[in-house]
C-alpha cells in the first residue's frame, strides 16, 4: 500500500491544469524551464510555485547546467498513484464479476422455476381433465 503522504503529494501535483500541462510536455522529452512553461498565460512567480509543487512531489527534477535550468520527469513519478488507481479498478472489476455470476444464477433459477411451473400447469391441466372426466362419469 502506498505511503499516504506521498500519494497525497502526487495527486495534489496533478490537481492543476498548468501542472498537468508541464507533466505532459515533459513526457515528450527533457526541456528548459522556458520550453516547459511557455504559453501558460500566468505570472513567473505563479509558474515557480507550480514547479515547486511538482518538485516537492518528486514528479520532476531540475538539472542546473550553468545558467540553464532543465526539467525532466522522474522515472517513477506517478507509479504510486498509478498503483492506487489499478487497486481501485480491481475492486470494481471484481464487483462486475460477482454481479455477472449472480445474474446468471438468477436467470438459471428463473428458467428452472418456469419449467417446473409449466410442468405443474400441465399436471394440473391433466388433473382437471381427469377430474371432469370423472365428474362426467359420476354424473352419468
Amino acid at each position, binding site marked *: 500500500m502506498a505511503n499516504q503522504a506521498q500519494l497525497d503529494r502526487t495527486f495534489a501535483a*496533478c490537481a492543476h491544469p498548468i501542472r498537468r500541462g508541464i507533466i505532459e510536455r515533459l513526457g515528450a522529452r527533457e526541456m528548459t524551464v522556458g520550453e516547459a512553461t511557455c504559453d501558460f498565460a500566468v505570472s513567473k512567480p505563479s509558474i515557480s510555485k507550480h514547479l515547486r509543487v511538482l518538485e516537492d512531489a518528486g514528479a520532476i527534477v531540475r538539472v542546473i547546467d550553468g545558467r540553464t535550468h532543465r526539467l525532466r520527469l522522474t522515472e517513477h513519478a506517478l507509479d504510486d498513484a498509478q498503483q492506487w488507481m489499478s487497486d481501485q479498478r480491481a475492486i470494481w472489476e471484481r464487483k462486475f464479476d460477482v454481479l455477472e455470476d449472480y445474474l446468471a444464477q438468477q*436467470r438459471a433459477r428463473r428458467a428452472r422455476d418456469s419449467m417446473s411451473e409449466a410442468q405443474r400447469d400441465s399436471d394440473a391441466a391433466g388433473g382437471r381433465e381427469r377430474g371432469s372426466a370423472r365428474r362426467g362419469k359420476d354424473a352419468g
Partner: protein
Amino acid sequence: MSSRELTALRLERTFAATPEEVFDAWTSPEVLARWWAAQPAWTSPGCEVDLRVGGRYVLRMRDENGRVYAVGGEYREVSRPRRLVYTWCWEGTDGPDPGAVSLVTVEFHPEADGTTVVLEHSGLPSEQSRTGHETGWIGTLENLARRIFDADERS
C-alpha cells in the same frame, strides 16, 4: 485538456438482464457480501444497505486473521433503475485510504440485449469539488501514466 481526459476512473460492462434486475442486484446485500469476501479465505461479516437518498451503507470484510476492513458511505441519488450515486469512504485509520471520501456514480443503460453499467469512481472529495477544484485528476493520472510510462494497464 478536454473534459473527456478529465474523467475519473471509469468502467463499463454489459449484462444480459433488464436495468431493474441489474440495479437491484447492484444494491443487493447478497451480491455485496459475495463481492466483499475479497479472497477465498475471507468472509463478509455483514453488509447494511439503507437504499434512499441520505441513507447509509456499510460493507465489512474479515481476513483470515480476523481483521475487519469496512467501507461505507451515503446514497446521494437513488433513481431506480437508471442511476445511483453514493460516497465511498474507508473506515478506521489503517484502511487503504483513511478519511478520503470519494464519489461513485453508476448508470444503467438499457440496450437491445441487456443493460450496460457505466461506473465512475472519482477520487476527489465532494467537499473540494463543490468549491470548484479540479475534478477528475484520477483519469488524467491514468492517461498520463499510460502515455508517458507506457505502463501495462489493462484496457
